[in-house]
């Protein structure tokens, strides 16, 4: 039972103002909610299931008997203090040491400051010296420390199941390069990376092996496509959004506060534009149009639910109003959105020319990005709130190209650097079979996972806290990856493997990175490199911003003829594949700290579920007689002992199907279902095994992010899921104290007068 505190009765203003609630149960004041409110934790959370009192006493008695018989506690345990033989420079026993490093993730590295105790990293925080981020750190970076000490990580290099020692492995890697003259029959599959050293090595590799295939694959897209910028802006450019300068922001299905690359910078800048500390401060305004309920949507002043496939039509309708170019209106044929919403939004954006910002989600089709650029160009935002830097195309082949080459039989040796294609490749490629058809597969992996299980040679990868490396931040600043500890299991880094296969004279990762950073500085190189390691970033290495000229003729070519707006229904669902908040695309699945963090929107932990809207749930036959509110809320019969009793359903697209639990989520587009990826791993890990379902089984290369034509069917079964929605619920005290900007200007002290 919780302690109860009596608060003064709410003022008239609070009663008449908008009401905030944690869930629909609270809104409707259902009996289940009342019961839960009385408890701090859900029913059954503090009891030990499976152990009864009698058995407990038995074990305790046996413990006392064994302990007492030997009287082990009566002897003084002799302990030793073990000092080093030779003093370690800089190390003071009992005090931590801090080093600058960085965590690489896809095409971005996050600068970090690692705390080490006696040579063991213990805590990661953002590097406070790196001004654009000011010491912030992401959830994944905080938790990545645990993976270093993960007992499930790969501990040995193996070839056909037999252990491979260090020297034999290095010979074997060197032999791969020598066996393929000019690289014929050789293929590489890597993750995307921002490392300048890797880029340098790959360039050398391609020069030496012109016939080899270099492919890159990421299952989740978090950056806008460079091809669009190339088409309509006339250059390989990457946008940098300046949220701090934007007074009006429109997000087109873009979760720039958590899912997009650079979201840490964007969230910081957005908050800077949002924060008011005095009467005179201006405040930005956020419009969000989205199919999923995201963190960005939850921050929006105006939010519109819309299927992701309808966003092109929405962008077209908005562009027609903002630019006055009626040809855009053709895109919006059949769009079912209140015209006033679009008109108000367009007027607001147009009233803030040069200080507004339109951003489209990375997962959206190229056409939406192109129209978003057109709107930004018409609003005069290019070069002001939307700046551009060189995107330096990697020239890598796609996974589909590589699959075609394997099918054609032109790949004899495949080197897979990181990634996990056997788990996350599009289902229609049938990657496991393809991989098995290649003669020799060498896999550099942190875990012996789905991909390594099908490879002849498994090379154990070093954790980034054991590696020398480098990377780039959002604005292109080069940051170092420094090892905090020697590789625990002799793991290799990606750049060392590449250097060995390419037969480089230098294969030591430290020297490779040194060459990249210190090389261009010439005689001053050693000092530059020391400074680089000390500060945690390379001074003046941010990419220069480049001018962008919007080409409307190119846009017209790109858009081509207008497509009809697809109509979605129960029989034709839109299916969106999104990275999970906890485990991303599955790469962090064996991290218990992350699994324990509930999803910020659904509050599910240790699991994933297909998210459906209340309307769809009702049409599927979940409580068909009830009102929408009743369907959406989770009452007693759906919530047993603190566990959500989710309905199981089969989701089918194009002949592929998965069985998964449904979580009814308000705020979704009516006929959009959200499939979080990253679960249902087949890997032998004690955390990730046997939890959740694998959404990749539905994904195809043609529609990796948004697919149409899905159908759902309930199976009638239920499954218990951990849902922390109602933990620590409270009553009689407003969760949010709110006033409008104009009210704040009248009375900046309004917060103090509310609810106290």
């Amino acid at each position: 039972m919780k302690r109860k505190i009596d608060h003064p009765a709410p003022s008239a203003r609070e009663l008449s103002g908008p009401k905030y609630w944690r869930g629909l149960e609270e809104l409707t004041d259902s009996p289940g909610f009342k019961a839960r409110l009385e408890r701090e934790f859900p029913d059954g959370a503090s009891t030990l299931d499976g152990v009864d009192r009698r058995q407990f006493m038995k074990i305790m008695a046996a413990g006392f008997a064994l302990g007492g018989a030997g009287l082990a506690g009566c002897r003084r345990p002799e302990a030793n203090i073990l000092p080093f033989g030779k003093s370690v420079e800089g190390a003071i026993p009992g005090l931590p040491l801090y080093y600058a490093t960085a965590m690489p993730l896809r095409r971005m590295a996050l600068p970090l400051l690692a705390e080490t105790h006696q040579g063991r990293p213990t805590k990661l925080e953002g590097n406070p010296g790196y001004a654009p981020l000011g010491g912030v750190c992401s959830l994944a970076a905080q938790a990545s420390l645990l993976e270093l000490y993960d007992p499930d990580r790969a501990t040995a290099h193996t070839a056909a199941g037999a252990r491979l020692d260090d020297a034999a492995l290095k010979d074997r890697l060197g032999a791969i390069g020598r066996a393929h003259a000019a690289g014929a029959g050789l293929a590489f599959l890597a993750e995307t990376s921002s490392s300048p050293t890797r880029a340098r090595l790959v360039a050398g590799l391609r020069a030496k092996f012109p016939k080899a295939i270099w492919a890159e694959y990421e299952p989740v897209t978090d950056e806008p496509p460079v091809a669009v910028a190339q088409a309509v802006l006339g250059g390989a450019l990457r946008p940098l959004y300046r949220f701090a300068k934007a007074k009006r922001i429109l997000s087109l299905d873009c979760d720039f506060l958590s899912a997009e690359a650079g979201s840490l910078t964007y969230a910081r800048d957005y908050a800077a534009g949002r924060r008011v500390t005095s009467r005179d401060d201006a405040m930005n305004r956020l419009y969000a149009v989205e199919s999923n309920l995201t963190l960005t949507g939850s921050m929006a002043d105006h939010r519109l639910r819309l299927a992701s496939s309808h966003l092109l039509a929405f962008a077209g309708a908005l562009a027609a109003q903002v630019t006055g170019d009626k040809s855009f209106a053709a895109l919006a044929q059949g769009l079912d959105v209140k015209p006033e919403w679009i008109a108000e939004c367009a007027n607001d954006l147009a009233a803030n020319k040069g200080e507004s910002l339109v951003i489209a989600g990375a997962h959206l089709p190229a056409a939406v990005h192109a129209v978003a650029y057109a709107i930004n160009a018409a609003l005069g935002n290019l070069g002001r709130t939307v700046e551009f830097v060189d995107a330096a195309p990697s020239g890598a082949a796609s996974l589909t190209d590589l699959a075609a080459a394997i099918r054609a039989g032109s790949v004899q040796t495949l080197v897979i650097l990181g990634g996990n294609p056997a788990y996350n490749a599009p289902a229609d490629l049938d990657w496991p079979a393809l991989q098995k058809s290649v003669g020799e597969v060498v896999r550099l992996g942190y875990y012996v996972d789905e991909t390594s299980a099908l490879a002849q040679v498994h090379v154990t990868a070093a954790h980034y806290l054991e590696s020398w490396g480098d990377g780039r931040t959002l604005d292109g600043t080069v940051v170092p990856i420094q090892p905090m500890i020697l590789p625990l299991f002799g793991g290799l880094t990606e750049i060392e493997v590449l250097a060995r296969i390419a037969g480089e004279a230098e294969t030591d990762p430290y020297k490779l990175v040194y060459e990249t950073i210190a090389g261009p500085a010439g005689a001053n190189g050693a000092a530059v490199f020391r400074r680089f390691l000390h500060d945690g970033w390379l001074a003046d290495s941010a990419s220069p911003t480049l001018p962008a000229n919007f080409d409307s003729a190119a846009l017209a070519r790109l858009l081509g003829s207008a497509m009809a707006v697809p109509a979605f229904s129960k029989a034709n669902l839109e299916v969106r594949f999104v990275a999970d908040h906890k485990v991303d695309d599955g790469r962090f699945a064996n991290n218990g700290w992350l699994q324990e963090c509930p999803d910020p929107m659904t509050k599910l932990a240790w699991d994933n579920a297909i998210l459906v809207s209340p309307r769809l749930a009702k049409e599927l036959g979940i409580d068909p007689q009830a009102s929408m509110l009743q369907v959406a809320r989770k009452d007693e019969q759906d919530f047993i002992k603190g566990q959500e009793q989710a309905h199981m359903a089969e989701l089918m697209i194009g002949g592929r199907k998965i069985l998964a639990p449904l979580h009814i989520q308000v705020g979704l587009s009516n006929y959009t279902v959200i499939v979080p990826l990253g679960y249902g791993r087949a890997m032998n890990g004690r955390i990730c095994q046997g939890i959740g379902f694998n959404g990749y089984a539905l994904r195809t290369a043609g529609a990796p992010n948004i697919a149409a034509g899905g159908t759902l069917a309930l199976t009638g079964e239920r499954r218990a899921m951990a849902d922390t929605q109602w933990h620590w619920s409270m009553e009689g005290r407003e969760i949010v104290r709110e006033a409008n900007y104009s009210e704040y200007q009248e009375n900046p002290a309004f917060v103090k007068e509310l609810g106290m």
Partner: protein
Amino acid sequence: MSNIFPKSANRLPLQIVIYLFVVGGIATAAVDYYMTPKYTRVGYTPVQPVPFSHALHAGQLGIDCRYCHSNVERSGHSNIPTAQTCMNCHSQVKATSPLLAVVKHSYETGEPVPWVWIHQTPDYVYFNHAIHVNRGVSCVECHGRVDQMDVVTHAKPLSMGFCLDCHRDPQDHLRPNSQVTNLAWQAPSAEAQTKMGAQFVHDWNVRPPQSCSGCHR
């Protein structure tokens, strides 16, 4: 019935009460003496792997404590010197002595010398050396006259009461910072100590915690 219990049985209740008082008193006194650190820890003098004499090094030769325990002013943990510290002198002095074989081996191979831990606070107690020695608490307050010990022995109980005595009346135990490692130093008189100590308490803002979470954190 009167012949079952003799007349002397009338005194039994009183005898039982007296007996319980005596036995209870002995038990309390015994627990208080034998089961507290005053008895269990004071006098603990394990045999060390190297017959290192503090009386010779710190006493006769006058080497400052901080030559070897070099980080005591910076870290919560007072470091035990590395073999390298010993070899600073012993690569020249008594370089061939068989007594130094363990230290030499450690210096050459990096294998640590397994010194036996004497002053061991329990894991549930937080103690920070640096904060104490920087505020004029001398080594001698907790470790005794190490400069007179051939083999280091556990001189003070280091019990909770021992800590609290000082935390309650710090002015009786503080000395000038320059005299912290001078174990022989004493204030000219008890009054002078209290007066000087009170000044230090004020000047250095010494507020030793007496709450549970000060040490049991």
